[in-house]
């Protein structure tokens, strides 16, 4: 019986809102165009990440695909990052296309705008999933068959929806509360579904790479590919090790100096030494391994924070007020048929905007602060709400014309 590493990397960048004041509302509609020297300038960030992560990591991945015919991986790439790559780093986009051209890189379905629309508007959610599919088909020539929701936000409803929509699998966090005593290293079946599989992230092994790899205080530092492969071998009955993480782990969250690229390159060398050990894309893992049990997830589970719920995005009243205000505009926005207005509204649905408003651990200056371009969650909220007022202004102008 063979066993597989299922490596899945998530590529995403939002359109960050610039410092947008009450004086801009009703005057300027360039929400996402921060000045070049500002920390929230999208072009600067995108080009930095492309240089530090996308381009060097894709070079390595391509080399590995050429060197090891058995090496495979899966990617998800949001519409908002694709647009930015097209505009500011076409060579990085090309390097992703080079990967998929090998036929051994599978792209996973999701919402175009990396939104939480599933929880607010099913109609909007389905539209964004469709937009994403069309973009992926046009750029990469493949139709995604496995679905991941934004932030791996998952519950029974999502599995039910994905089953009806014809996907063969869904990705989710292998969190203890849904697995209980069971291991994430198998394929499961979501409760109440007919024909869909569930792949659960092995968060311990994934986070060893994504979070702990460069941490010199960590007892396992330095982590080598050989050591890591030995850990996998220790679980003799497992069928699939689901290593899910942000793509930016390679070169951005873990800097090149940490040796993360070398780790990646050495992984197939040690893993493929044993013929029973393979790499599989998400679809292949689902085809190859039978589900070993049902998983029931009535409450939403995500891949963030120790709570693994939606509280990083929707935990405080600012976040709730902002997202409710935004989705409250849906009918008017869609009815306006104003494409630039609709597109701006969709870009504001990106979950990152709400993440920046999180106050949970703002005191400790931890990971939330690292990922936010704003000085405080309150600035993020103020900018966002001023933009919201401008959307309303534009809607009112529109209705005057009609």
């Amino acid at each position, binding site marked *: 019986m063979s066993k597989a590493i299922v490596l899945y990397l998530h590529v995403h960048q939002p359109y960050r809102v610039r410092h947008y*004041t009450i*004086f801009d509302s009703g005057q300027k509609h360039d929400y996402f165009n921060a000045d070049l020297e500002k920390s929230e300038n999208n072009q600067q960030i995108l080009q930095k990440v492309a240089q530090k992560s996308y381009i060097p990591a894709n070079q390595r991945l391509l080399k590995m695909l050429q060197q090891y015919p058995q090496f495979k991986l899966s990617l998800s790439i949001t519409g908002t990052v694709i647009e930015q790559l097209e505009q500011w780093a076409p060579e990085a986009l090309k390097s992703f296309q080079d990967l998929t051209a090998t036929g051994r890189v599978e792209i996973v379905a999701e919402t175009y705008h990396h939104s939480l629309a599933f929880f607010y508007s099913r109609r909007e959610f389905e539209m964004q999933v469709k937009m994403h599919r069309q973009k992926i088909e046009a750029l990469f020539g493949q139709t995604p068959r496995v679905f991941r929701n934004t932030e791996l936000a998952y519950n029974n409803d999502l599995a039910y929806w994905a089953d009806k929509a014809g996907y063969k699998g869904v990705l989710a966090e292998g969190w203890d509360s849904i697995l209980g005593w069971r291991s994430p290293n198998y394929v499961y079946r979501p409760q109440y579904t007919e024909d869909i599989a569930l792949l659960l992230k092995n968060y311990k092994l994934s986070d060893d790479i994504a979070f702990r790899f460069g941490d010199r205080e960590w007892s396992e530092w330095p982590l080598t590919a050989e050591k890591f492969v030995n850990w996998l071998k220790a679980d003799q009955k497992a069928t699939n090790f689901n290593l899910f993480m942000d793509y930016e782990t390679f070169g951005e969250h873990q800097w090149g100096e940490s040796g993360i690229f070398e780790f990646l390159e050495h992984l197939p060398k040690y893993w493929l030494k044993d013929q029973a050990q393979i790499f599989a894309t998400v679809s292949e893992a689902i085809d190859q391994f039978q589900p070993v049990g049902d998983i029931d997830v009535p409450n939403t589970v995500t891949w963030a924070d120790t709570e693994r719920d939606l509280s990083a995005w929707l935990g405080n*009243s600012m976040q709730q*007020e902002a997202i409710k205000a935004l989705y409250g505009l849906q009918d008017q926005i869609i009815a306006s048929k104003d494409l630039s207005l609709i597109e701006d509204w969709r870009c504001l649905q990106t979950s990152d905007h709400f993440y920046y408003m999180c106050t949970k651990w703002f005191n400790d200056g931890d990971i939330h602060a690292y990922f936010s371009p704003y000085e405080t969650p*309150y600035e993020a909220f103020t900018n966002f*709400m001023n933009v919201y007022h401008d959307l309303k202004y534009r809607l009112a102008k529109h209705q005057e014309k009609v």
Partner: protein
Amino acid sequence: MLGWELPPNNSGGLGVACYSLCQALSRSQVDIEFIVPYLGHHSADFMTVTASQPAGVKVFREGGSAYDSYKYVFSDGRQQSFGIFEQQKIFEESIASTTEGKAFDIVHAHDWLTFRAALRLKEERGCPIVLHVHSIESDRAGGKPGNPLVHEIEATSLNLADKVVAVSQFTKDSIIRDYNIPPDKIEVVHNKINLNQIEPLDSENAYHYLSAMRAQGYRIIVNIGRLTIQKGLNNLLQAFKDVVAYEPKTLLLIVGAGELHYELLEMSADLGISRNVIFTGFLRGKAWRDAYAIGDLFVLPSVSEPFGLTPLEAIGYQTPVLVSRQSGVSEVLKHCLKVDFWDTKEMTNKIVSVVRSDALRQNLQANAVQEVSSQSWDQAADKLLAVYRRALNAGVAV
């Protein structure tokens, strides 16, 4: 310890800071005699408070505000009024006799008014002196050089001090900039607030009118402080004009007295916002506490604020705050809004966002209360004890 004021005879934050600091130090077994230049009615049981009585003076300042001119009655019946600078000199001259026969290890003096007295003691007793800077002359002058005589006192004494304590990094930087004091001689000890010790509110707010307006959907912006150039209220009024344009149901409550009172009054009329701006004059007690409590947002727009205790007090009364970045308090608060004092556009932007959003206000408020609750004067006292030890050890080495 030498100081110019203690509650209830204080005009501002200096007295409160001295009082709370001594209270915390006394918990660490520091024996304090606090010498002030006036006869007061203090209720501090954790230290001795002594009035420094000039020779030949029968009656001198009794309480009141610490910065006015005062009439001294001499034993020969002569009467004379003295301004602040003369009072400072009298304090210096009287300090030797006030401390005669008393033993102490260290002299800790608060602000320029007591610095020459501290120098005098160092000269006579050879004990180390710690000069605690709550504000320097360029702060009080709103960024201008200020009074050259005061400047000279600060320059001389800070140079001769064994250790200098600054109430913020902002103040430390100003001391280095204005007086060229070596950075390693200056220790930053931020002021604190003990939220469990603030005077509680009673059930009814004194501002009936404002409460009624709030019930009608008005939002109230509050500032409490002296009406001086340092406090930057002209910028707040400028910003508030635009706030009212966006959100007409907004009122600004300005509590305090000072030389700019009439100027600010006139300015709000010129800006056409008199209907929305309320000046109360100087307040104490319930009316003062209730002003914090009635606010939806407290604004500290200072041009140059060495520390700024009022935002912490506002948080103590459950009111969120917007503070100038040119303030010491902005160094110790994360859960607040911050703005450069000159950036009136951004001030408007932030005030409007708070006026418009209950959620923003609630998050700022709840998180700030939590943040400030974890602070106490004991942390400041611990830092000061370390400063004392270093000053004493350095003295031994010489």
